């Protein structure tokens, strides 16, 4: 059997397409070139040669091959909503199917950087409109009428003068033989019927009756369950183990040593395989393991931050510099010089990390909550020496991802176990594994220096010291973190003439990975907190201060909106207000937090206002939901969460010592979206970074106390 046959058969099974169909996709060409739309009837052919996105079968059922993951952010709905708009079909008739990992067909599939819509909306709209146009042409040809007399609506082509109608299903055979027309005209925003509307998500019904299949819910015939007792230190190995008691647990079938590659280092553990999750967990408890913890540093949190503070005395690697901030800081009379500190964070998705792997000779199949199926495919192919087309990586729904599930360690480990035991296996990470094993958002320290001259910012100098995701695997770090300015609004560079950013290399053996909004989540706290401190030093209102320095029209509108909705200028005496505005993945979000003292003397958050400018958008309710959720996640990150290390091991284990915000902790959150025609920006992450600097600014406004270290305890401010 050729490898191509496997992939074609699987593709057909996945999409459920038989017989005549209209298939549309973009021909795959190198980056930077205009991709051509290809129309075909042959699904087999298209499966190999197109990054095929849309299929319409002879019953009129539309299938959209979604090459990105759905982890809560709502793109499962947004992609369908876009397609239905330009194709002129009812949303309920669109079936969304997750693509397998295959970068040859789909290009990059990593669901990260809030990139699903902003990265593909123009292509998808064009593809959908092209499908509509060939269907109209096919109908016009049948009726021998000019195409201009025909229009499409609700999955039908209608001949205006006669009122004749043909369903798309009746047209696909003819339409698939037509050439794709050039110069497709997309709808105007004012003509949209679906885009821009707060429509219900297609995945909600199956998420309220237990039908949605997450990674942990997938079962394969003959599948076994495994849990792994990994060395609690990140680079630790297994010296020896005694599995006598573990093997006596009913249901336990095997106990093996397993290696897991974490970036380019190996962590070892002992895997217990059983016929149920519970039996595997019981077997694991009965293991006696001696670890080998030699050859690497055993870190303590206090030491991590002490070293970061030391590093911040150095100049570091220059990332961006304009004017002469050093010269001005050396002579200015009003100078601020402060340090901000942010903690390590766990992702703590509700669905713990898990993965199913079935390794067979020359063939691997993976199922799981996976953010980057194409990366997993490439990684497994390379590390297990299996031809890439024989590695099939299937995405389920993800019970949260936040960046953790874009990492490659867990599919690798599951494949290792399956290879060793010769059976399909589901590897389950317990909540404790998920919390203690990383990778984490890096804790980063920042030094901020600034000078105020005649009430204006005359110089700003930022430097950061913290681990860099890109360089963790490559400690020979000679270049600054390319995300050093992430989160900081570009228009500031127009108005602050003397400013510099630097990154001081800092490497320790703690594995790090993207965490929702990535560097903006920590940079945003430092940079926007410092803007608030400079405003105070200059004796200016923090919102007006930003008006002065963010001259860009979109920022001005966003600031006006924040002022209008929050009552910023009409605040009462016992209320604290704080503001911050951050950029993240091509969207800008401003937040205002209002705090006051409760009768018991504790500071409480009364309200959060958020304004989102993400340019062109699909579904305003999904955007609101993402910002609400981002604020809740940011609340935990600012006031509760810190992963700490002692002797090289993580000290938090489960929700009892790494507690999540609960329904009792959530302030009212009011979200507004700015309407404009700018290119689409990200939605899933940009709502997060502005919250913590706005909150600490509000607390300063109320109490006069500056908070420069996260997390802090709301009960004691």
């Amino acid at each position: 059997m050729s490898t191509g046959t496997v992939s074609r058969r699987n593709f057909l099974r996945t999409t459920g397409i038989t017989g005549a169909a209209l298939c549309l996709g973009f021909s795959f060409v190198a980056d930077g070139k205009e991709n051509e739309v290809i129309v075909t009837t042959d699904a087999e052919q298209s499966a190999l040669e197109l990054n095929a996105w849309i299929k319409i079968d002879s019953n009129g059922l539309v299938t959209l091959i979604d090459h990105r993951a759905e982890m809560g952010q709502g793109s499962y709905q947004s992609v369908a909503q876009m397609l239905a708009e330009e194709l002129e079909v009812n949303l309920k008739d669109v079936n969304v199917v997750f693509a397998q990992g295959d970068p040859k067909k789909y290009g990059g599939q990593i669901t990260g950087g809030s990139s699903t819509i902003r990265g593909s909306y123009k292509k998808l709209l064009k593809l959908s409109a092209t499908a509509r146009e060939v269907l109209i042409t096919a109908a016009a040809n049948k009726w021998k009428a000019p195409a201009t007399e025909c229009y499409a609506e609700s999955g039908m082509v209608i001949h205006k003068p006669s009122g004749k109608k043909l369903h798309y299903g009746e047209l696909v055979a003819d339409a698939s033989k037509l050439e794709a027309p050039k110069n497709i005209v997309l709808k105007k925003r004012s003509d949209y019927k679906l885009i821009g509307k707060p429509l219900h998500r297609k995945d909600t019904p199956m998420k309220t009756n237990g039908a949605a299949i997450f990674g942990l819910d997938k079962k394969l015939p003959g599948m076994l369950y495994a849990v792994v007792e990994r060395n609690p230190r990140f680079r630790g190995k297994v010296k020896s183990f005694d599995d006598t008691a573990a093997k006596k647990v009913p249901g336990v079938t095997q106990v093996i040593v397993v290696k897991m590659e974490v970036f380019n280092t190996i962590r070892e553990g002992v895997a217990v395989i059983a016929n149920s999750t519970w039996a595997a967990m019981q077997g694991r408890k009965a293991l006696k393991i001696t670890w080998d913890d030699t050859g690497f540093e055993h870190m303590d949190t206090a030491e991590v931050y002490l070293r970061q503070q030391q590093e911040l005395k150095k100049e570091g690697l220059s990332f961006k510099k304009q004017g002469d901030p050093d010269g001005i800081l050396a002579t200015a009379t009003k100078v601020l010089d402060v340090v901000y500190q942010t903690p390590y964070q766990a992702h703590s998705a509700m669905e713990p990390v898990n993965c199913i792997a079935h390794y067979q000779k020359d063939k691997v199949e993976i199922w799981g909550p996976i953010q980057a199926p194409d990366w997993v495919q490439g990684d497994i192919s390379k590390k297990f020496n299996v031809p890439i087309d024989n590695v099939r990586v299937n995405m389920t729904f993800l019970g949260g991802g936040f960046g953790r599930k874009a990492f490659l360690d867990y599919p690798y480990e599951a494949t290792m176990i399956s290879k060793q035991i010769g059976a399909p296996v589901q590897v389950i990470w317990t909540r404790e594994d998920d919390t203690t094993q990383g990778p984490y958002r890096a804790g980063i320290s920042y030094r901020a220096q600034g000078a105020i001259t005649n009430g204006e910012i005359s110089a700003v100098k930022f430097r950061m010291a913290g681990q860099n995701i890109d360089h963790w695997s490559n400690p020979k770090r000679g270049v600054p973190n390319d995300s050093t300015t992430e989160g900081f609004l570009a228009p500031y560079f127009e108005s602050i003439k003397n400013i510099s950013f630097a990154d001081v290399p800092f490497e320790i053996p703690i594995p790090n990975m993207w965490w929702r909004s990535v560097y903006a989540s920590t940079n945003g706290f430092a940079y926007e907190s410092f803007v608030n401190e400079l405003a105070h030093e200059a004796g200016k209102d923090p919102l007006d201060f930003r008006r002065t320095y963010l001259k860009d029209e979109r920022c001005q509108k966003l600031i006006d909106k924040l002022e209008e909705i929050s009552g910023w200028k009409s605040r009462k005496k016992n209320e604290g207000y704080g503001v911050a505005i951050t950029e993240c993945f091509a969207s800008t979000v401003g937040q205002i937090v209002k705090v006051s003292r409760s009768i018991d003397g504790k500071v409480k958050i009364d309200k959060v206002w958020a304004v989102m400018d993400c340019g062109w958008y699909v579904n305003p309710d999904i955007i609101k939901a993402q910002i609400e959720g981002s604020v809740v996640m940011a609340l935990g990150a600012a006031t509760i969460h810190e992963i700490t290390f002692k002797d090289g091991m993580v000290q938090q284990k489960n929700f009892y010592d790494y507690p999540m915000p609960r329904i009792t902790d959530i302030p009212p959150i009011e979200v507004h979206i700015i309407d404009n025609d700018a290119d689409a920006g990200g939605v899933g992450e940009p709502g997060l970074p502005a919250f913590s600097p706005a909150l600490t600014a509000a607390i300063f406004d109320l109490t006069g106390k500056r908070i420069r270290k996260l997390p802090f305890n709301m009960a004691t401010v």
Partner: protein
Amino acid sequence: MISLNVNQKAYQVDADPNMPLLWVIRDIIGLTGTKYGCGVAQCGACTVHLNGEAVRSCVTKVSRAEGQKVVTIEGLSNNNDHPAQVAWNEENVPQCGYCHSGQIMSAAVLLRENPNPSDEDIDSAMAGNICRCGTYLRIRKAIHSAAELQRKELSSR
């Protein structure tokens, strides 16, 4: 062999009596709507009804459920039409959706016991259920809507 009644269906399961009900439901019976989140009754993702009461199935030994009536999210209604399910859809509550089986099972007990819950009633009934996506404001709103739906259903009977 342990006799169980899950969603009004009888099962004979061959399981260690100490195995939590969660893993029996998921791995042996094969109903995967009930979720594992923490294993220590901290997050509520595993909430099911045992004789009508909300319990955390991750810490409920299967022996405790023997001969009792267990209802999981799959058995809460026939057509996804329990007032809480309808309201969850109406208010666009779920994001990733993983915790919502448990959220809805907790809400269903609250709605039965307290047909007109205040914000405070909702908060105290739902404080045991974690949502990492942060859908809490919508959960509260959906429970109010569900209560309204439930009252309408009762008055139209």
